[in-house]
């Protein structure tokens, strides 16, 4: 955090702030100089903070009524839906909230990709973000197991079995994860415990993420360094707070649309059938936000190979600041990167689509091409492109193109 010369007005405020500088922190947050050209893609950080708090509060309430036991979990969910006052509402906010959380995080990540927000000096912000994303996936996966429906059970079986691909110790790791010889009650109870705890870890990482953000300050749509504070910046409050709140309202309207009009559209009907270890559903699919990774897993006809690519596809993103060596951040001034950015988006959406389809015929072919392209994008295209691309000239300041009418 930048040095602060804030002194509270009141005598008590000064006394308190000298002992615990909370008022200095509040003043830093309100005055925090923000580039004045931030567009609506920058409002998703605030939306994500809202999502995290919303999940934690609804989750806390659900945990008051939920029973984490293989014999009772499924009926306790029905109890929440039918008996608990507003239980249906709270459960639907939590289940759809997870989807909205991922929707927001994907927009947030692709915003960073387009505007080069992962580049120096923001690499640590980016890596903390990826860690948050990994924890989000783990938390959502374990949460989906809790209702103990068919998809819960078989999703948990397939995902935990991924670890059995590890040579030599794989079997012991899965047994250790399960606390038995298959997914069963011990698995359910530990998943509940961890599902409750992980969001607190996420909260801690979010604080570090924002702290790291406040060192260099925000990136911006044209990606140039701005002097802070200057005529290129505005104070966070009220300019950004009001803009973030407006975006949050729009987001909440869409969110409410799901909760009140289509609460189950993103879920799978098989999860309203109680878990049965003897029968696997015909067609197992993960939640929509994990589909591209599922497509990558299934595209490889080899167990270990599939698992390696699955984890590789996520970890490769951590190396992104070093794979892309272009000095120019924003893709507005990178004509080639701009094109490949959109191809990557189409590729990821296509992978998501085939991830939901059976792994055969044309779908399998698309999944293989898509997987190959995904890795080629990060390992070949980006490193080469960032060296040969002829970028367009950057403006000297944010105000500059406006004043010169460019």
């Amino acid at each position, binding site marked *: 955090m930048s040095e602060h010369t804030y002194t509270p007005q009141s005598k008590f405020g000064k006394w308190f702030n000298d002992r615990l500088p909370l008022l200095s922190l509040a003043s830093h947050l309100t005055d925090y100089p923000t580039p004045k050209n931030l567009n609506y893609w920058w409002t998703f950080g605030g939306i994500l903070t809202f999502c995290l708090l919303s999940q934690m509060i609804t989750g806390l309430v659900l945990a008051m009524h939920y029973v984490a036991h293989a014999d009772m979990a499924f009926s306790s969910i029905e109890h929440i839906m039918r008996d608990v006052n507003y239980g249906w509402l709270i459960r639907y906010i939590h289940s759809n909230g997870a989807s909205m959380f991922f929707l927001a995080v994907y927009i947030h990540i692709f915003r960073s990709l387009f505007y080069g927000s992962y580049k120096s000096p923001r690499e640590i912000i980016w890596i903390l973000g990826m860690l948050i994303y990994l924890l989000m996936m783990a938390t959502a996966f374990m949460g989906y197991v809790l209702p103990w429906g068919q998809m819960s059970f*078989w999703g948990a*079986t*397939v995902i*935990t*079995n*991924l670890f*059995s691909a590890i040579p030599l110790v794989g079997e012991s790791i899965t*047994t*250790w*994860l*399960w*606390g*038995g*010889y*298959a*997914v*069963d009650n*011990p698995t359910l109870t*530990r998943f509940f415990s961890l599902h409750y705890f992980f969001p607190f870890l996420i909260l801690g990482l979010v604080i570090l993420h924002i702290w790291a953000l406040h060192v260099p300050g925000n990136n911006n749509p044209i990606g140039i360094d701005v002097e802070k504070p200057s005529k290129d910046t505005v104070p966070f409050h009220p300019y950004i707070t009001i803009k973030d709140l407006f975006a949050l309202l729009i987001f909440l309207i869409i969110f409410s649309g799901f909760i009140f009009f289509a609460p189950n559209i993103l879920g799978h009907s098989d999860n309203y059938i109680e878990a049965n*270890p*003897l*029968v*696997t559903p*015909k*067609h*197992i699919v993960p939640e929509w936000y994990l589909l591209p990774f599922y497509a990558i897993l*299934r595209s*490889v*006809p*080899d*167990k*270990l190979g*599939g698992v390696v690519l699955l984890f590789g596809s996520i970890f490769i993103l951590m190396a992104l600041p070093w794979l892309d060596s272009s000095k120019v951040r924003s893709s507005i001034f990178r004509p080639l990167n701009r094109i490949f950015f959109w191809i990557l988006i189409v590729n990821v959406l296509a992978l998501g689509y085939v991830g939901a389809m*059976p*792994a*055969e015929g044309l779908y399998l072919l698309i999944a293989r091409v898509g997987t190959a392209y995904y890795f080629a994008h990060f390992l070949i295209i980006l490193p080469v492109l960032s060296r040969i691309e002829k970028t367009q000239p950057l403006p000297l300041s944010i105000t500059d193109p406006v004043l010169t009418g460019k």
Partner: protein
Amino acid sequence: MEKSGKKSDRRDFLFTATYTVGAVGIGATIWPFIDQMNPDNSVKALATTEVDISQIQPGKSITVLWRGKPVFIKRRTETEISEAQSVNLEELKHPEKDADRVKKPEWLVMMGICSHLGCVPLSDKGEYKGWFCPCHGSHYDTSGRIRKGPAPTNMEIPKYVFVDENTIKIG
């Protein structure tokens, strides 16, 4: 300077000893927190199941639960047995003779768990008329051996004994 050199030797020793004891202590403290997640005594206690097989007709199979996992008990027909026995081992991804997978050729007792990611395969399905796993498309033959698809190995054979003509004890 000899004296101070000696002194620092003694310090180095004390530091190393302290670090070592500290590391061992931390390791010994962490271990119970890790090991508590392994199968507990009540889970390990449920280790055997007895099954009555007198009602199973040739060509049919039943599925029983053992240690939370399905076990297929299949009474194979003559054609299924000869198919399983006549396969050229060179063709197999995980070569195993059918004779090594059964105690009596008529009875195939096998974990009903796909060796890929643990789904329960469907019986009498797939290109080899044994089992087919719908999760990611693995095909097994009438001996439960992997023939096609992402699964790396044959379906596992649990420990079992024929207690008498009509009873199998698994585990």
